[in-house]
């Protein structure tokens, strides 16, 4: 895969060079897609060993560290290289393809979608593989995140990279002088690394759950934005509905192969609902300075069955059976952040992540929760050489993670560097 990517890149670049340097009467370089490359590097210092980091969890929120391109191993790391290509297909469609190479993850096609340009009356249609536009953080690629890492509630409920998948989106923008937009998305709902949603079936010990009929994941959202002079407001509300077929494994400690894991329990729920609210306020001070406040709340309700391994008291795991219980579980959390761009080249920010105590009922019996408050505090300072290169310092105090069933506060210091070349990137309303 890695080789294909490199070969493709070389072909593309040499093609462009060839086309520019020859009097080829069939030159088509004007048709080449807009191309941009984004490279991200970091230096990470942390008070936890890399091997232990792999085994961190947030009980009842996150069973293992999420899949992420943002490396948190100690030392100097190359995080990812993103290649984005886009061009009009014809008068009716635009095509966008975004792929990422990250060490340890190989090449991933993050998004490849077509946007229609011909729908009248404020309608828009996107088809393909894309990131959902629910919430505030979800659709952002890592290079435009305000912090090095994604909010903890996203890691826990939607995954670090957010909800994405194959499907389509229909939007409607109202004909008013402010922004009022409705959107709905239909996704296939099957994924290799499920966090909250998965419509594929599974086998857990002797219990087999059939796959749901697909497409199986639906979203809806409303966004509105208006401004009073230099005061800008953006509000959103979103809901996701889908199937949760999830098998959770846990690592057996002390084993040679850390990869070796055993299914610990499984969940199957047919009508999982995840909803959220977001609010952004931004005050424009002058041409280069602004102050912004952003908050987002997410909550997930799982109502279905829980399957536990009943080990029959024997050492042989092959005759274990699944014990079925009723499960009702609510997980919620939020992040709030303030950013201050105080110079053309400088921006600083602080973020607080907070997870609420989950409400868990097994066979209608409430589960006792631990008393620890789960929160994370992050501060960052950014320096922009230009809009194409950025240096960021970040400090995290993470009081959400457990190691071997005990709270283990983690401190991190991260220095990251991000570069963008190629077609002009866009200013985002962060």
């Amino acid at each position, binding site marked *: 895969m890695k080789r294909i990517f490199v070969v493709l890149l070389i072909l593309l670049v040499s093609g462009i060079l060839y086309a520019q340097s020859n009097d080829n009467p069939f030159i088509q370089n004007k048709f080449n897609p807009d191309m941009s490359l984004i490279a991200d590097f970091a230096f990470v210092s942390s008070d936890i060993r890399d091997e232990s980091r792999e085994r961190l969890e947030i009980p009842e929120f996150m069973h293992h560290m999420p899949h992420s391109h943002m490396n948190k191993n100690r030392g100097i790391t190359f995080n990812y290289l993103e290649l984005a290509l886009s061009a009009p297909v014809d008068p009716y469609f635009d095509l966008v393809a975004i792929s990422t190479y990250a060490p340890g993850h190989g090449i991933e096609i993050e998004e490849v979608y077509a946007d229609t340009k011909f729908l009248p009356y*404020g309608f828009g249609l996107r088809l393909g593989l894309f990131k959902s536009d629910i919430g505030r953080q979800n659709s952002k690629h890592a290079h435009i995140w305000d912090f090095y890492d994604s909010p903890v509630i996203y890691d826990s409920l939607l995954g670090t990279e957010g909800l994405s998948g194959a499907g389509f989106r229909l939007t409607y*923008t109202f004909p*008013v*002088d402010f922004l*009022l937009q409705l959107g709905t998305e239909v996704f296939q709902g099957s994924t290799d690394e499920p966090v909250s949603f998965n419509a594929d079936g599974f086998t857990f010990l002797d219990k087999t759950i059939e796959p749901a009929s697909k497409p199986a994941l639906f979203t809806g959202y409303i966004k509105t934005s208006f401004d009073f002079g230099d005061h800008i407001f953006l509000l959103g509300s979103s809901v996701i509905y889908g199937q949760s077929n999830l098998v959770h494994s846990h690592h057996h400690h002390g084993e040679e192969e850390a990869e070796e894991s055993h299914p610990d329990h499984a969940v199957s729920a047919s009508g999982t609902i995840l909803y959220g609210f977001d609010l952004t306020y931004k005050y424009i001070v002058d041409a280069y300075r602004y102050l912004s406040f952003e908050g987002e709340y997410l909550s997930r309700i799982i109502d279905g069955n829980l399957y536990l391994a009943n080990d029959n008291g024997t050492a042989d795991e092959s005759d274990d059976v699944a014990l079925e219980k009723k499960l009702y579980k609510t997980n919620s959390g939020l992040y709030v952040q303030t950013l201050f761009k105080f110079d053309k080249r400088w921006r600083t920010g602080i973020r607080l992540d907070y997870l609420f105590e989950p409400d868990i009922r097994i066979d209608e019996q409430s589960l006792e929760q631990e008393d620890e408050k789960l929160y994370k505090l992050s501060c960052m300072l950014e320096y922009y050489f*230009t809009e194409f290169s950025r240096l960021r310092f970040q400090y995290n105090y993470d009081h959400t993670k457990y190691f071997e069933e005990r709270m283990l506060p983690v401190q991190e210091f991260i220095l990251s560097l991000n570069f963008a070349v190629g077609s002009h990137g*866009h*200013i985002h309303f962060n």
Partner: protein
Amino acid sequence: MKNILLTVLLTLFISSVLLAEEPIKVVVTYPYLESIVKEIGKEKVDVSTLAKGTEDPHFVVPKPSLIGRLRQADILFINGASLEIGFLPPLLKQANNTKINPGADYLIDLSKRVELIDKPENVSRSEGDVHPEGNPHYYLSYNNLPKIAEGIRDGLIKVRPGSKEFFEKNCSSFLKRYEEKKEKWDSLLGKINGCKLIQYHRLFNYVAKDAKCTIFAEIEPKPGIPPTAKHLEEIIKKANGQSVLKIIGDDYHETKSVKRLSEEAKIPYVILPHDVKSFDEVKDIFSLYDTVVGRLSE
């Protein structure tokens, strides 16, 4: 049945009459365009402007509320030459208005009407924020105004051919007023003919060309790159004994470097507006040129 048909037809007729009378929804990127559109469109246009006069035209805040305005637009006039490249494409994508999508008939790029200068031979970001098409600040030269006005006139006629005469009449009376003003501006610029100027950003190259002046140096070492102390010292050394007429600062960049340079090199400085509504007194396109030409030739 007949009654229903009649009612439907009547409603259609009345609404079409009402629609025809409704002003054209025009969206423009910068306040200077708003000023010209209002001169030519008068009561037949309803203009929304994306940028404020005090913003850096390259880094306009892409307010999400602008999507609602773009979604309703009948026509969009842009400066072009990549000045809007950073903020406009994502807004257009969100608005998804078939009339003004890139490549559509009613997205009017006015830079296509004028001859751009300073077109770089090689394009590389190691040269800072360069525009492959040439310098995008062409509108600061009043000599380009007729072409911009004609572009706007033709765009409005394309949206509403029935009002062709109205727009033509407004445009020619606007240009007649312009011709009177132009004489004054020409004679003012004549006073500084052949001078040397220092500017902060490559904003006033077209004005310098009109005045047959040379841009002696720029406070930004490269376009979009803030000045360093070393670069300022180099300018001071270079300007020694060169009789540079003025140092030009502008409304949205910092003026500290301008003042420092002025003090140390003993060259007077002047702060010029880059757009309409950048300063309170710059109310429209004519007062923009009045201020630029007036302050420069003082």
